[in-house]
């Protein structure tokens, strides 16, 4: 299997106070596989993903190589990078409620994006989006497109983002904690859609999460980050069964402890196992 994305010696720092956020990280994503990045908040997961998209805030700088299908993104102009975003590198944000312009209906963003990349007409966009939205189990796609973000739920908006990704057919999908802002039921539904997305499109994916249960379910490989450094990486099975680094063991044990606490509270019912 070839690597669709290779990150080499990525260094990310804040130019305003010279604080290094990610000192030196290298990893790769294989074609069609899902890489999960786990770690506590502030460990540099999100910044790393935004660095791949070259979308960190103005003061944050980065160096190193990011190869997408062999092409070094670091050498691309902003203009050419913009053409890659959305079409080849697609992102799904944590909070669906805040990912869309609050004063426009959701359809406006979808139309603008698809018009930009494919130049389709209005009817074609609506037809394509309708299909994609139905495939992620959204009822009444047309109605959803004509609603404002605040009139929809976080889970629905999350699925709208997934539907847009289905139409865009990116080489790699980056999901930044896509389930964190959702309640358990919506979480389950959204994860279901991610699994189907992988099955159907064979889409490569980077999945950021601190929910190890979900990671175990969806990822092929796992990368554990702590304070900006990659402390361990390997296949999901290896990480979960034989964690090498103390930090990985700590993460797993805290997850286990939480599960046990949960079980005790629920009176021994085995609900928290995933």
């Amino acid at each position, binding site marked *: 299997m070839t690597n669709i994305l290779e990150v080499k010696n990525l260094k990310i720092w804040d130019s305003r106070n010279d604080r290094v956020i990610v000192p030196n990280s290298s990893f790769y994503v294989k074609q069609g596989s899902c890489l999960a990045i786990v770690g506590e908040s502030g460990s540099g997961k999100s910044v790393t993903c935004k660095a791949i998209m070259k979308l960190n805030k103005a003061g944050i700088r980065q160096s190193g190589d990011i190869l997408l299908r062999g092409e070094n993104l670091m050498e691309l102009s902003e203009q050419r990078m913009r053409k890659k975003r959305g079409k080849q590198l697609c992102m799904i944000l944590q909070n669906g409620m*805040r990912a869309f312009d609050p*004063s426009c209906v959701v359809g406006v963003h979808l139309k603008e994006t698809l018009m930009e990349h494919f130049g389709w007409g209005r009817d074609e966009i609506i037809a394509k989006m309708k299909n994609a939205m139905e495939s992620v189990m959204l009822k009444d796609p047309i109605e959803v497109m004509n609603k404002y973000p605040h009139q929809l739920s976080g889970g629905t908006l999350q699925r709208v983002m997934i539907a847009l990704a289905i139409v865009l057919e990116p080489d790699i999908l980056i999901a930044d904690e896509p389930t964190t802002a959702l309640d358990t039921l919506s979480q389950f539904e959204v994860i279901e859609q991610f699994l189907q997305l992988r099955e159907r499109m064979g889409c490569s994916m980077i999945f950021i999460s601190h929910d190890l249960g979900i990671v175990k379910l969806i990822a092929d490989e796992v990368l554990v980050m702590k304070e900006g450094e990659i402390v361990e990486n390997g296949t999901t099975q290896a990480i979960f069964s034989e964690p090498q680094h103390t930090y990985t063991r700590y993460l797993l044990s805290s997850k286990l402890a939480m599960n046990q606490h949960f079980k005790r509270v629920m009176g021994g019912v085995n609900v928290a196992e995933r």
Partner: protein
Amino acid sequence: MGSYITKRLLLSIPLVLIISFVTFAFIHLSPLDPAEVVLHSQGIPQITDELLAQTRAKLGMDQPFLTRYLNWVVSCLQLDFGDSYITGKPVWSMLGPAFLHTVKLTLVSTFSIVLLSIALGVACAWKAGKWVDKSVRGVSFFLTSMPSYWLAALLIWYFSVKLDLLPTSGMESYKSYILPVAVITISYAGIYFRIIRSAMLSNMNEDYVLYARACGLPEKKITIHILRNSLQVAISVFCMAIPIILGSTVVVENIFAWPGLGTLSVKSILSRDFPIIQAYVLVLAVVFILFNTVSDIINVALNPKLRDGL
């Protein structure tokens, strides 16, 4: 939406009534006897008690307070604000043209304030922290803190006296607008562009901007989205700017001898011309309430979250 507008307009009626009552009562509290003012202005040398009583009866001052108030309100509704004590002409014939002149000055100034604030606000937000941003904010701080009479005097000295390019005062041609509008714009744009700048900055850090970028939308389109959301805050501020400027052109109008409300009101206050003062306060209050309502309605039209709450 239609019912919301009706409701807002209906709600403003009691507000106008309260303001009219307060205005009337305050003038009534003034220790000066209107009859004396009238007789003085007519240049009568010997004011006898008999003459005073006669004049009072003519002005209707011998009636009880509430009756006078009600009479005044009813005639105000017919745009009859009484006659000036000094000139004897109907108040509306003096207030009307002055009001129009001030409205002209205010509208031109507001237009230039809005244009300048949006241009500077967007530019400073894009270049936040860079030298463009810092210098614009520095210069505007310096200019805004200058009193407008001082700024007006400086501009007159340079453009009218030294360069002889623009008229010093009056309202003859479009050239007469330039200096007063410049003074008003400089005093207000420095405040309003900051509001746009900070609204733009907080919107730029929103997730929807990140997502729009991540979807590969061009910066031009993203800027329109940011501006649209930032303007929601600014529009209510701009709407309120119109009555505020309308009421505060006093200084500028007096310096540039602009025949507007400011000049008229100062003249009336100095000569104790009560009917004009009363009408002036009432007209301004109505304008304030009207623009407040309009700004609320525009906000509701722009912000879908507010629209749902109706």
